[in-house]
C-alpha cells in the first residue's frame, strides 16, 4: 500500500497554527469513531506552571494550604534533580475540558497529548458512569473559585492558623467524605454561593436541635425523640435509641451535620473539603480504565494519522518509542518495578477487548460469549461507560492478558513463614488472579472500612467508630494522628474500635486513655 504522504508538519517544532490543524484532523477522526467529548480548552504552559498545577492536584484554582506548598517543593526538587520528568499533560474534568500542554514538548508530544487527553480522557469523563454520577463538569471550576474565596475570607476573619488546623483535620478524613451507596445531588456553584448563608443558619439550628438535650432541655421543649418533624430530621437519625440509628460511612458529612461545637463557617469548610473529595472520588476508582482508555485512543488515532499520511515516519517512530515507554510494565523483580502500571494494564485490556471482538479464538468464545465477535466500537463504549476498575477487571481481564503480563498471585500471611504462590497464568489460575486483581483495585479493600456507629448525645458526647477489619489487617500507625484530628472536629472524646467477625481486636482512643496505653 502506498500512501501519498502529505504531513501537516515535520520536525519537532510546533506552533499554534500547526497544532490547530492537527487538532482538526484528530477531531475529525474522533468524530468518525463517535467519541463523545466536551469542548476542549487547550492551554500551553511553562514548566513552572506545570509544577504549580501539580501542586494543586491539577485544580486550576485552589485554596491555600501548606500541604500544596509541600507538594510543590517535592515536585520541584525531584524535577530539578532529574529524578522525575513532569507529566507531559494534565487534564481536568470540567466543561470545557481543560488540558495543559507543556511548552517544552516536541511536536509529536503535543499531538500525542491532544489525542490522549483531549479525546481519550475527555470522552471518558463525559461517558463513564462514576463521573456522571459524582461530578458535575459544568460547575467544578466555579465551585473551586467559590471555595477559594470562601476560605480566604475565613482566613481573614478567623486567622490563617485556625483555618489551617481545620483543613488539616478535614484532609485527614477526606477519603471518608462519600456515601458510596447513595447518589449525591449534583453540586452547583451558583446555588452553593446563593444558599450558603441560609445553610449556615439552617445547619446551626439542626445541630442545636440535636444537642438540645444537653445538658438540660430548655423548658417547653419536649425531649428527643419524637418531637421532631421529619423536616427537622432529614436523615431520620433521631428515631430509635441510638444516634445515628444506622452506621455512617461518610465521616465528613456526619461531622458537618452533627459536630456539636463547630461554628457555621467551620461547617462550610468541612463541606468544601467533602465536596472536593467527592469530585476526586471517581478518579481514585478508575485509574486503570481511564488511562487505558486514553492510551487506546491515542494509539488508535496516531496510527490513523499515519495511515492517512498526515504525519511522517520520523514523528511516528518518535511516537512509538514514547508510547512503548508509557505502557511498559517492568516485572516484579526489576529494579524499576513499582507496582502494576495502570497505563499498561488498562491499555492491554482495551486492546484485548478489541481483539476479542475482531478475531475471537475458541478460548475467547468460552470466556466472553457475549462480546466475542461483536462490533468492537460498541463493546468498547459499553465497557468504558458502565464500569470502574474493580468491576472492569472482573469483567474483562482475559486469560490472554494474564498470560502476556505473566501475572501471578502471592498470598502474604503474617502467620505463615513463607509467601505462597497461589495462582499463576494457567487454566487453574486465571479466575483466581482475576478475582484477586479486581479486589486489589476495590476501594473497600484498599482503604480501611471505618464507620460512625454512635454519638453519645445523652451521655458524655463521645463519638464511637468501628473499623471493620478484614483478614486480620490492622490499622497503620497513622490512626492516632487521624483520630486526634477527628477529635478536634468533634470536640469530645473519640473512640475507634477494630472489629473482625464481631469480635473486638483493638481499641483506640483520643484523648489517650489508660486502657489503650496498656494495649499499645
Amino acid at each position, binding site marked *: 500500500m502506498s500512501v501519498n504522504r502529505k504531513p501537516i508538519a515535520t520536525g519537532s517544532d510546533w506552533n499554534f497554527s500547526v*497544532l490547530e490543524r492537527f*487538532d482538526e484532523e484528530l477531531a475529525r477522526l474522533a468524530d468518525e469513531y463517535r467519541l463523545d467529548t466536551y*469542548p*476542549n480548552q*487547550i*492551554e*500551553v504552559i511553562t514548566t*513552572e506552571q506545570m*509544577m*504549580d498545577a501539580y501542586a*494543586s492536584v491539577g485544580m486550576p484554582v485552589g485554596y491555600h494550604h*501548606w*500541604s500544596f*506548598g*509541600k507538594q*510543590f*517543593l517535592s515536585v*520541584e*526538587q525531584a524535577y530539578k534533580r532529574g529524578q522525575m520528568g513532569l507529566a507531559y499533560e494534565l487534564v481536568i474534568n470540567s466543561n470545557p475540558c481543560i488540558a*495543559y500542554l507543556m*511548552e517544552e514538548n516536541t511536536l509529536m508530544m503535543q499531538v500525542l497529548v491532544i489525542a490522549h487527553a483531549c479525546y481519550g480522557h475527555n470522552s471518558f469523563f463525559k461517558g463513564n458512569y462514576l463521573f456522571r454520577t459524582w461530578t458535575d463538569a459544568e460547575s467544578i471550576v466555579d465551585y473551586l473559585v467559590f471555595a477559594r474565596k470562601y476560605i480566604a475570607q475565613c482566613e481573614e476573619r478567623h486567622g490563617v492558623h485556625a483555618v489551617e488546623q481545620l483543613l*488539616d483535620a478535614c484532609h*485527614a478524613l477526606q*477519603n471518608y467524605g462519600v456515601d458510596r451507596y447513595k447518589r449525591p445531588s449534583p453540586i452547583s456553584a451558583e446555588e452553593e454561593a446563593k444558599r450558603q448563608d441560609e445553610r449556615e443558619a439552617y445547619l446551626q439550628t439542626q445541630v442545636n436541635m440535636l444537642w438540645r438535650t444537653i445538658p438540660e432541655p430548655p423548658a417547653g421543649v419536649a425531649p428527643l425523640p419524637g418531637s421532631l418533624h421529619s423536616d427537622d430530621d432529614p436523615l431520620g437519625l433521631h428515631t430509635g435509641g441510638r444516634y445515628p440509628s444506622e452506621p455512617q460511612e461518610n465521616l465528613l458529612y456526619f461531622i458537618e451535620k452533627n459536630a456539636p461545637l463547630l461554628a457555621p463557617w467551620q461547617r462550610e469548610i468541612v463541606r468544601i473539603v467533602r465536596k472536593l473529595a467527592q469530585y476526586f472520588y471517581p478518579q481514585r476508582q478508575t485509574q486503570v480504565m481511564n488511562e487505558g482508555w486514553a492510551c487506546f485512543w491515542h494509539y488508535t488515532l496516531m496510527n490513523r494519522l499515519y495511515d492517512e499520511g498526515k504525519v511522517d515516519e520520523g514523528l511516528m517512530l518518535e511516537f512509538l518509542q514514547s508510547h512503548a515507554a508509557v505502557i511498559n*510494565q*517492568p*516485572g*516484579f*523483580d526489576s529494579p524499576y*518495578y513499582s507496582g*502494576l502500571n495502570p497505563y499498561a494494564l488498562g491499555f492491554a485490556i482495551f486492546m484485548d477487548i478489541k481483539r476479542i471482538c475482531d478475531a475471537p479464538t475458541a478460548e475467547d468464545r468460552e470466556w466472553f460469549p457475549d462480546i466475542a465477535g461483536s462490533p468492537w466500537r460498541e463493546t468498547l463504549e459499553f465497557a468504558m461507560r458502565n464500569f470502574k476498575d474493580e468491576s472492569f477487571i472482573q469483567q474483562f481481564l482475559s486469560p490472554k492478558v494474564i498470560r502476556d503480563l*505473566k*501475572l501471578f*498471585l*502471592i498470598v*502474604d500471611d503474617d*502467620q505463615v513463614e*513463607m*509467601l*505462597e*504462590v*497461589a*495462582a*499463576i*497464568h*494457567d487454566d487453574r489460575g486465571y479466575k483466581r488472579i482475576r478475582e*484477586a486483581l479486581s479486589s*486489589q483495585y476495590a476501594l473497600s479493600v*484498599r482503604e*480501611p472500612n471505618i464507620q460512625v456507629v454512635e454519638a453519645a448525645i445523652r451521655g458524655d458526647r463521645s463519638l464511637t467508630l468501628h473499623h471493620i*477489619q478484614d*483478614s486480620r*489487617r*490492622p*490499622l*497503620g*500507625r*497513622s490512626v492516632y*494522628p487521624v483520630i486526634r*484530628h477527628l477529635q478536634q472536629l468533634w470536640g469530645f472524646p473519640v473512640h475507634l474500635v477494630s472489629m473482625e467477625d464481631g469480635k473486638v481486636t483493638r481499641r483506640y482512643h483520643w484523648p489517650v486513655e489508660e486502657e489503650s496505653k496498656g494495649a499499645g
Partner: protein
Amino acid sequence: MTYFIDRRPNAKHKSAVNRQRFLERYRKHIKRSVEEAVNRRSITDMERGEKISIPTKDISEPVFQHGPGGARNIVAPGNKEFLEGDKIRRPSGQGGGGGAEEGGASNQGEGNDEFAFTLSREEFLEFVFDGLELPHLQRKPLKSLEEIKMVRAGLARDGVPSRISITRSMREAYARRIAMRAPIKRALKEAQEALAAEERKDPVLRNPARVVELKAEIERLEKRIDAIPFIDTYDLRYHQLAAQPQPSSQAVMFCVMDVSGSMTQNHKDIAKRFFLLLYLFLEKHYEKVELVFVRHHTAAREVNEEEFFYSRETGGTIVSSALNLVNKIIEKRYPAGQWNLYVAQASDGDNWDDDSNICRDLLVKQLMPQLQYYAYVEITPHDHQSLWHEYETVAAQFPERFAMRQIVDAGDIYPVFRELFKRRMSQER
C-alpha cells in the same frame, strides 16, 4: 470544538503562598537546618540557598491506612519460574508483612525517611537573620573613603593632541566652512549670472570691459573659496577631564575575636552571625571586600576562617595584642587612603585590667582616625568589666563610628548595627 490558549505569559509563582505557608509551618525544623548550615559554611558563602531535610514522619498528612500484618493477596507481573503452590522466602528488609501504603515504594534511590527541598537564597538569609529585622541592605550608599578619579567632562578648545575629539573637530570645521563659503558663493553666483546675461546679449551691444571685469571677479571669488581652509586651529576640540571624587570600591573587614578558654562554641556561633551581618552589609556596598581574621588570647595571630571559628585555645586575654596586630596589618597591607576599613570585635569582656586603658589609647589615637566603623559586641549575660568601661569613653568620642553592645543571644546582634544603618539612611535623603 477546541480553543487554544497561550497561558505562558500568565503569572508565575501561583504556589508562592502555599510555599510560604509550608515554610512557616516547619519554621523550627528549617531553622535548625539553617543554623547547622551557617555553622558549616564560610562567611563569604552565604549567598546561596540551602537544602533542607525534614523527617517525613513530622510532615506527613495522616489518613487511615492498613498497617503491616494480617493476610494479603498480591498480584504481580513478570512471573518467570514460579508454579502454583511454590513457597517463597519473605523478602528481607522493610515491612515483612508489607504494609499497604506505609513505608512507601522507595526503591528508587532516595530514601523516603526525609522530605528534602531547597530554600532559595532570600529564604535562607531570612532564616539566618530570623528575628533580627534585617534592614534592606541595598540602595543605601555609604559615605565612604573617597578617591579621585579622572572622568571625561565635556570639551575644551585647548588640550593635548592625544585628546583631540576628531568628530567634534570635524563638525566644527564643516560648520565653519559652510559659514565662510556662503557669502562668497552668493557673490560668485551673481557674477556668473551677470556674465551669462552679458554673453547672451547681441555682440554689438556687449560691453567687453564688463565681461573682462566679471571674469576677473569670478576668478577672484573662486580663489577665495579655495582658500578657505579644510580645518583650522580654532576648529579643534579636545576632550576634557575633570577630577571627580569617587567612593572607594574596596573594603577590608577585620574580624577580631577573643578565643581564650572562656569563649565557648556557642559564643563563637553568635559571633559568627555578628561578623556575617557586617560582611553582608559591606558586600552590598563595595565591589571587593577582603576579610582578615585576627584571633587572640594573650597574643594575637592572623588565621584563616576555619581556624578562627573552630580551633580552641586557652589562657588569659590581652585585647591590645589584637588591636596592635590590626594596626600593623593596616599599615602594611591596607593603607587607609585606599581601603575602607571596618573592624568587628567579639569577646566575652574579659581582659587584663591593666590592658584595657592601653586598648583605649590605641583606639583613640591610632585606629579610630583611620577606620570607617568599629563594632564591638560583648557576648555575656554578666556584668561588664574594665574593657567595656574603657570602650565607653571611646564611644563617647566617636559616637558616629563606634558601636558597642552587650548581647546574650543572636537576636541582639542587629541593634549593634542599627546606628550604622540608620545614619546611612538619613544621609541618603
